[in-house]
């Protein structure tokens, strides 16, 4: 009897596993119009009494583990680390690990920052990068300050530097 009960438990557990949804990797992004969200408020402080209408923009890759990992690869490929440090810790450019970025931390703000560039050094990547890559970068940048779900962000980086004894000397 005990064995039957144990067997049923195992079967039930296996059935639960079938409920797991495998994340789809979207390898072929849809072509998109080049957009900016210049109307998006960059901070809650506004002059006068009129609060601007909040633009409803959603990053298509929000919570997408594959896109966040791709964003991390792009971040290093496009040398973002030269100014913002290897994992966005900040250097010549501001750190990206903060929830209060200079030009706003909402997805639409970060998108604009990458797309249009910002004064004092941030180049405009619009026209150079396809829109979906900018969204992947946005997802990665937001993951640096814990604004992406934990389930989609890696506990550690894929490319932790490994050094041989000789290299350490």
């Amino acid at each position, binding site marked *: 009897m005990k064995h039957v009960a144990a067997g049923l438990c195992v079967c039930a557990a296996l059935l639960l596993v079938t409920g797991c949804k495998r994340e789809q*990797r979207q390898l*072929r992004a849809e072509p998109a119009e080049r957009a900016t969200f210049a109307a998006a408020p960059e901070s809650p402080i506004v002059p006068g009494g009129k609060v601007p209408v909040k633009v409803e923009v959603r990053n298509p890759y929000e919570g997408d583990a594959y896109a966040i990992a791709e964003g991390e690869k792009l971040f290093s490929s*496009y040398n973002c680390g030269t100014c913002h440090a290897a994992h966005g810790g900040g250097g010549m450019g501001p750190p990206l690990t903060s929830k209060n970025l200079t030009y706003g931390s909402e997805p639409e703000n970060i998108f604009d920052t990458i797309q249009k560039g910002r004064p004092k050094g941030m180049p405009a990547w619009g*026209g150079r990068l*396809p829109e*979906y890559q900018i969204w992947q970068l946005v997802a990665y940048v937001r993951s640096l300050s814990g604004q992406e779900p934990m389930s989609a962000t890696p506990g550690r980086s894929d*490319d932790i530097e*490994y*050094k041989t004894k000789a290299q350490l000397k």
Partner: protein
Amino acid sequence: MKWFAGAQSVLDPAGPQAGRIHGLFEVFLWVAIIVWVLTVGAMLIAFWKKHGGERHDDTTKRVVTACGVITVAVLLALLVASAVTGSAFATVPSNNVMNIEIRGHQWWWEVHYPDYIPHERVTTANEIHIPVGRPVRFKLTSDDVIHSFWAPNLSGKLDLFPNRVNEAWFEADRPGMWRGQCAEFCGLQHANMAFWVIAEPPDKFNEWIENQRKPGVMPSTPDQAHGQEVFLNGPCVVCHTIRGTNALASVGPDLTHLASRHTIAAGTLALDRGNLAGWVTDAQRIKPGNRMPPVNVPSKDLEPLLAYLESLK
């Protein structure tokens, strides 16, 4: 066994290493054939000779002991043959060696010829030209995951690791063009991570390398000039290099002499205008998961861009 060997085969060796590996293969093959024939023959004889009951006499003992000794001796001999073959090309010859550095990427091969002064250093991709009769030392490393370098007509396999340099060498003893392949599963497009080794007589090789050392050809028609403008002002420049222009990025393959190569996308497609157009506009359909994004080029810009790329001999 050349008769069924294609452009990528261990059965058609084109250099001393591959020749020795092939020799070893033949030794193993013939020993295995003889052992198999003898064993199956003995078994058939045992079937036909119907003896009643079991036999335990001195002859049986002697035969069994002799077969046991012979088996061990044959295995030892094969082990020695294998070790001798392996050590025969363990050390890289020291004189007249040409150096090539190879960096594996998901999913293509970056190839450097470091023997020249820095600004004439040759960088190419997925195509390795070597002179006939001159040993070539390979320094192998990887940019991301573990890959394995394997040109079966020329040598055995060697893995490419991130943060580590492995050394191999081989030599081609006749001119020819052979295909190589990544031999360690490395992700979605592992099967489409190929390269070509082209062995040429020294004077032809020198001609090739002299051309590769030059910066990219300047556009000679208004069409090509427009194409260059598209290249330099569009997304291409973020990842690719064309020496002699402002394009200096190293995320994707160096395109300085793109049109001198035989294939694009690491041996996936032959280099011609149609394939190039397909690759530029929608590489993800051809090789899903690779790092080339679909490029939104209006058709009035695409043709000039292709004309420019095709002029980069």
